[in-house]
């Protein structure tokens, strides 16, 4: 077993109204960042877990996302990074 660090991104599904993202985009515009077309606010989770290899760590994280970390109705997730500690 190796200790892995798995980073997960959870974001609101594209196309759904994201008022939080819109509020942040409006604030960025008011700071003069007129190049910003849109913002989506999600969650970044860092899991430390033990697995035989990186693929197994990734598979475990995926199942965790499907069962708890992301809401399948409204959110998408992405396993952003898997690294051995």
């Amino acid at each position: 077993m190796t200790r892995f660090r798995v980073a997960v991104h959870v974001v609101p599904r594209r196309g759904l109204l994201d008022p939080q993202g819109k509020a942040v985009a409006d604030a960025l515009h008011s700071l003069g960042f007129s190049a910003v077309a849109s913002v989506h606010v999600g969650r970044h989770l860092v899991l430390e877990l033990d697995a035989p290899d990186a693929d197994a760590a990734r598979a475990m994280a995926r199942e965790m996302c499907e069962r708890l970390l992301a809401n399948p109705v409204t959110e998408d997730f992405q396993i952003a990074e898997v690294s051995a500690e």
Partner: protein
Amino acid sequence: MKFGIVTFPGSNCDYDAYHAVVDALGEDAVYLWHKDHDLQGADVVILPGGFSYGDYLRAGAIAALSPIMREVVQHAQRGGPVLGICNGFQIACEARLLPGALLRNASLKFVCAPITLRVENATTRFTSGYERGQLITLPVAHGDGRYSADDETLDRLEGEGQVVFRYAPDRVQAEESYNPNGSIRDIAGIVNREGNVLGMMPHPERAVDPVLGRPDGLALFESLLQHVAA
């Protein structure tokens, strides 16, 4: 008739639900601790409002995995009535007792106000004491009440009469501001396909006493009583 009211860490409407059942309706109620595995013979389970687990991760997500939810889901699968109010609606969705999800209010503001609802289906065991199309007033108090589901689910809900309450304009609530959270198709409350699980954002248990305004929530509890006693 016995009501079981689940107390999660962060529930804050469990006492209101108890008051509605015991003092207004005149029936028995017990508090059910979220770590227990015993519904104590309750005929009806209430998942009350509040902020279980501080709304960590997503409102209702952690509470949906509480030990007692195993028994609540079994109770629902046997056809037992479950009433999820506010945070309880969020928990019921996260536990997949109901379809869809509740998202941050479109305004990003917490809303706490009396609100007008239209009763869309008065044939459920929760709403037989109302009339179809009746306008009622109940309080809302939430930050994450915007119901959301995909179009296919929404069409099915509408087609099967599962949309029970909708936010509605009236003389006080202007045409453009009657929906307090941006909920899709103005949905305020739904039942599952079998009709024994109701989730709603407004608080019927806070509208059962004439001292506190129009007691429009009482008929919901009376409907349940009639149905279970029958």
